[in-house]
């Protein structure tokens, strides 16, 4: 609506002409200027400018909904109440049904922890026919790190849904619904995102997975002091894709070690700490999500996968609806499976830390992990 034409807003002819003459064509052009700047530029009185701005604002402002109508609309129109079940009972319960439609869900964790495994499973679930509890649609899988493995996915399918995958031709049909994109660079990715937008609307796409987001910027994004986030545009684009197509979007994020001087405190905290001598807890692990804080603000749900004293743990680190809770899991031939559906409550900031202790250990010990997974 930002690009609405001023000439079509029903302003008085004389005023509309003045705007056109100064090359102020869209609402964006007009509203990017202050009222006094406009007055100067258009050479009309303040009164008229204010009236015109009020009119333009009213027209280009999206209409409101009450939260109640929003709720009713969601519950009526959406299959599975707007969630893609992960089939991990405990996690689904905590997430109120699964990965929600319309928002961006992020998976963060160290290499080899099972992010890709989780994504493969989700892709499979979304492609299942609705009669089997899937979304019965296409899946777009943006595979930046070239980790997508069809063999592994079919294997997961065979062991989790043998009754479907042993049927003739169904495996082919499922796999045929998953479209894998492999962009080589950020600019290629940008381009394919724009194409995705079109195909989402046309081709009955029910899930978008990006594995991983961080790999796209490695090298380009570090501690550079650029004012702009290299993914700034992508952040808002992906969010709007999720929202306007009402599909779940899952992205993965890598971890990196925290730089020593990295900000984790506010100025006032530093000051009060200085008085009481350094009592800041020393973190045993220094892992943080690779994409910075601006990205973290943008995702609606963040799931952290980590290893803690030799066990893998998936926990809900950010969600506006679910409590902070973690589940121990391991990786089997059918994908991720929870050891216990009960879950452990995470205390406060603990939900956000990323541990990687004894991680090498579990990979060796875990004999159930099939080879094709690595």
């Amino acid at each position, binding site marked *: *609506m*930002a690009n609405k034409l001023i000439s079509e807003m029903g302003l008085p002819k004389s005023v509309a002409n003045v705007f056109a003459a100064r090359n102020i064509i869209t609402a*964006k052009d007009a*509203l*990017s200027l*202050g*009222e*006094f700047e406009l*007055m*100067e530029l*258009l*050479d009309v*009185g*303040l009164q008229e400018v204010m009236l015109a*701005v*009020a009119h333009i*604002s*009213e027209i280009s*402002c*999206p209409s*409101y*909904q*009450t*939260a*109640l109508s*929003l*709720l009713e609309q969601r519950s009526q129109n959406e299959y599975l109440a707007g969630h893609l079940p992960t089939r991990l009972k405990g996690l689904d319960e905590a997430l*109120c049904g699964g990965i929600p439609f319309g*928002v961006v869900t992020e998976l963060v964790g160290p290499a080899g922890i099972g992010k890709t495994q989780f994504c493969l499973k989700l892709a499979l679930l979304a492609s299942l026919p609705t009669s089997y509890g899937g979304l019965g649609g296409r899946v777009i899988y943006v595979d930046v790190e070239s980790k997508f493995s069809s063999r592994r996915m079919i294997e997961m399918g065979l062991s989790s849904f043998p009754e479907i995958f042993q049927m003739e031709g169904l495996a082919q049909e499922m796999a045929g619904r998953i479209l894998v994109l492999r962009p080589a660079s950020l600019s290629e990715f940008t381009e394919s995102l724009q194409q995705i937008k079109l195909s989402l609307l046309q081709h009955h796409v029910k899930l978008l997975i990006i594995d991983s987001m961080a790999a796209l910027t490695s090298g380009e994004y570090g501690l550079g002091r650029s*004012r*702009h*986030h290299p993914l*700034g*545009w992508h952040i*808002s684009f992906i*969010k709007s894709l*999720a*929202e306007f197509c009402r599909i779940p979007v899952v992205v993965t994020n890598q971890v990196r070690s925290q730089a020593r*001087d990295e*900000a*984790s*405190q*506010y*100025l*006032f*905290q*530093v000051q009060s700490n200085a008085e009481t001598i350094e009592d800041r807890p020393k973190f045993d692990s220094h892992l943080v999500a690779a994409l910075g*804080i*601006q990205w*973290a*603000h*943008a*995702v*609606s749900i*963040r799931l952290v996968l980590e290893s803690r004293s030799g066990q893998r743990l998936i926990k809900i*680190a*950010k969600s*506006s609806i679910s409590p902070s809770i973690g589940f121990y899991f391991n990786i089997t031939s059918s994908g991720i499976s929870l050891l216990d559906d009960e879950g452990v409550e995470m205390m*406060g900031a603990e939900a*956000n830390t990323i541990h990687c202790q004894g991680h090498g250990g579990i990979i060796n010990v875990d004999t159930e992990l099939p080879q094709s997974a690595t």
Partner: protein
Amino acid sequence: MEVSSLPLSASQRGKLISAGYTSLSSLCATSSCNLARDLKISENEAADILKVASRRSGLDKIENGGQAIMNGAQTAWDMLHEEESSICITTSCSDLDDILGGGIRCKEVTEIGGVPGIGKTQLGIQLAVNVQIPADYGGLGGKAIYIDTEGSFMVERALQIAEACADDMLEYNSLLWKDSQACEVNIQPRAFLNNMFYFRICTYTEQIAVINYLEKFISEHKDVKVVIIDSITFHFRQDFEDMALRTRLLGGMALKLMNLAKRFNLAVVLLNQVTTKYNEGSFQLTLALGDSWSHASTNRIILYWNGNERHAYIDKSPSMRSASAPYAVTIKGIRNSTSNCKRVKLM
């Protein structure tokens, strides 16, 4: 007083100055037909200019009659009374209410910031529910406008919080009317949702538009008592090449919000993201949008992790002392931190 300070268009101003009308007093002494002749403009236009000029000189003139010495001014004594009668929206966390002097104040712009996942949106939704608590229960009985720029508003969560709030009110009711015949009140959580006006904003242009439009919207919906913008930052952090323009637009927005808060006696709550800033040799967290923005709000509250507990810290306020208090995000919404009965720490 110079003519150039009048809100007139450039060409009119140019004509005035070239015709010798440089000061306000010279305009006061002329009539509209004289002015029209001197400036070679229509008489109507000249009358408009004079109107503008007289309005301005009226403002500056000191009036001795009546109570007001200056037009539009208020004595500090009157303001004290007004402040005392001003109402607050509770946060549902009494520790937090204590340090805030009762809650989020009407007529003020309060900015709340914090790291992802700390509970900004939760607090926003909580306030949108709490503003509707009827006056019988010590609330405002108002309505809420929720401007969502990030798409993080979860209607299911709003329902949860509204249900918890309705439960609390019923409980309070049964305590209050224990002996007398219970006066039946029917509190519908869904009614809470019906009084939340939700705007979903997708670009910064829309954000500016909606803030411009609010004035009209609120004059049509007079019982709106809180405007929540979640978050003020999102669209202004990306796709912005011209930082000076960004500062100007943000400044203009802040001014309009401040006026709205005053004029309609409502609370404006702006949620903000955090960013890192280099300060005296180390990187620190700070609220986004830069230093000039930090002047925009009346109060500034920072939400942060203190060990395993969520805390809120008053970073800036003209009337409250700097303090921090723990809070918790529970299934019912924002509540007191239950882990211990720690005293509110004054810093």
